[in-house]
């Protein structure tokens, strides 16, 4: 039976004469003995004949026209595409232009993105970098003018309730912002303090109130972004106190200032005299003056005519009696 199956698979090839001689002989011998396989061969030949006699179908009359209509439609599409994209005389310039446009766009986007990145970056990072830069000669006058404000933050005593964060609220914007100063490296901070000392010493060693007032007049507009808006632009009053013991006088003066709601009180010792600088309401100025009389002999300069609600910056010089 197994042999019959193998023979049957070879029958189509046998019928077509495609078997080798040995296979052909084997099939032939089997067919003489096996009636089933002989019948299978007969059926196979009949089926093949039937298959070969199957009639051919004709294409419908519209067939060619329909195919050609679709082909022509396709050609129109192709021509349109070719017209715009295929010819090299257009294709190459289009490619070059596209490349240029993309390059320009990329540069533009990169640059605009850079600005945005700067804006997005935390404020602290940018001032640190700027603080590390040495001021250019052109910026030096500005730095000088801003000296009093910087003096207030960078230097010495912060008295009583006057705290750094308060100062930062008052002296807020610009490159001399306290926040940036806080984040400066300690050595940088120290170096800056030194330079500030030198600058302030230079400024305050100028003799005569006129010079000082001139200096502060100039400082006012330039440092307007750095100074508190509530501080008046008028000429700063200077109170000179002549005492026997400067150190104890300074302590007392500070107490008095604190009592009069003075803010941003700074102290500096320069060549045998102490300079206190503070901001306080103008209306408190007269009371302050009267209380300072208890410390020693007082001379005042540039005192405002009337007190108001505005804050005023006062410089108190405490000197030893000659």
């Amino acid at each position, binding site marked *: 039976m197994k042999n019959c199956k193998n023979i*049957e*698979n*070879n*029958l*189509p*090839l046998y019928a077509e004469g*495609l078997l080798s001689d040995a296979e052909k002989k084997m099939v032939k011998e089997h067919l003489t003995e096996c009636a089933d396989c002989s019948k*299978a061969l007969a*059926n*196979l030949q*009949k*089926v*093949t004949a*039937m*298959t*070969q*006699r*199957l*009639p*051919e*179908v*004709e*294409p*419908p009359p519209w*067939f*060619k026209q*329909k*195919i*050609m209509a*679709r*082909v*022509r439609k*396709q*050609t129109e599409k192709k021509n349109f595409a070719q017209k715009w994209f295929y010819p090299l005389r257009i294709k190459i310039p289009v490619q070059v232009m596209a490349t240029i446009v993309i390059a320009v766009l990329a540069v533009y986007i990169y640059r605009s993105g850079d600005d945005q990145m700067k804006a997005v970056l935390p404020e602290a990072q940018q001032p640190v970098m700027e603080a590390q830069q040495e001021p250019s000669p052109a910026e030096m006058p500005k730095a000088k003018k801003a000296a009093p404000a910087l003096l207030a933050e960078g230097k010495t005593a912060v008295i009583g309730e006057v705290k750094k964060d308060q100062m930062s609220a008052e002296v807020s914007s610009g490159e001399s912002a306290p926040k940036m100063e806080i984040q400066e490296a300690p050595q940088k901070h120290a170096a800056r303090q030194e330079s500030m000392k030198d600058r302030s010493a230079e400024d305050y060693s100028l003799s005569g109130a006129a010079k000082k007032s001139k200096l502060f007049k100039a400082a006012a507009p330039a440092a307007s972004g750095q100074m508190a808006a509530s501080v008046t632009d008028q000429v700063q009053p200077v109170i000179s106190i002549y005492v026997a013991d400067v150190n104890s006088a300074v302590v007392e003066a500070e107490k008095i200032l604190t009592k009069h709601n003075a803010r941003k009180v700074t102290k500096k010792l320069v060549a045998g005299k102490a300079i206190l600088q503070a901001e306080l309401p103008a209306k408190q100025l007269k009371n302050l003056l009267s209380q300072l009389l208890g410390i020693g002999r007082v001379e005042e300069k540039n005192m405002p005519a009337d007190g108001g609600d505005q804050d005023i910056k006062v410089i108190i010089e405490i000197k030893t009696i000659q």
Partner: protein
Amino acid sequence: MLWMSNIVDSKNATTEDDDLQYVVLCRKGDVEAFEILVERHQKKMLNIAYRMLGDYDEACDVVQDAFLAAYKSLNKFKAESKFSTWLYRIVVNYTKNRLKQRKNLARHESASLDESADGQVSCAACLSVASTGNPAELLEQSEREAHVQRCITTLDVEYREVLVMRDIQGFSYEEIRDVLRIPDGTVKSRLSRARVALKDCLVKVIGDL
């Protein structure tokens, strides 16, 4: 110009290919030249598709798609074989794709025989009916042909394609090998099995042949 050199290189293989001149014209944009190629091959392509699918209308759709695909890819024809071989390969592939879609849609699961009968009715008007013979003989012959077609459509696709090409369309083994891109031995073994399977199917359906 690559295709031109290909044509020259394979000149020996395609010396008797009358289609090439029209292919060249088509590539130059002569759409009418393609019409000649359609005219030449539409019938054979339709018959291949029809015998494989068993549905006349579907076969018409497939052949249209195949011609359009051939037109679009004329530049890909390398003239390594005859144009007709390339064209028949396209239609066979499109037909096989259609059969796959059918299978996926499960439209013809168990009702394939019925649909084959419908297809037969659909194409009846297009059959080349012999003018001789009495109506009873014609009816009997028509029934037998319907049975054969039904059994062909039950065969596996790989058997169906070789059977259709060899026994119905009369392709040579070499042509089948080129169209289907399978070895000679595979063509013969597939054809052998296809014939045996068809015989078994018809014996079941008709009885004594």
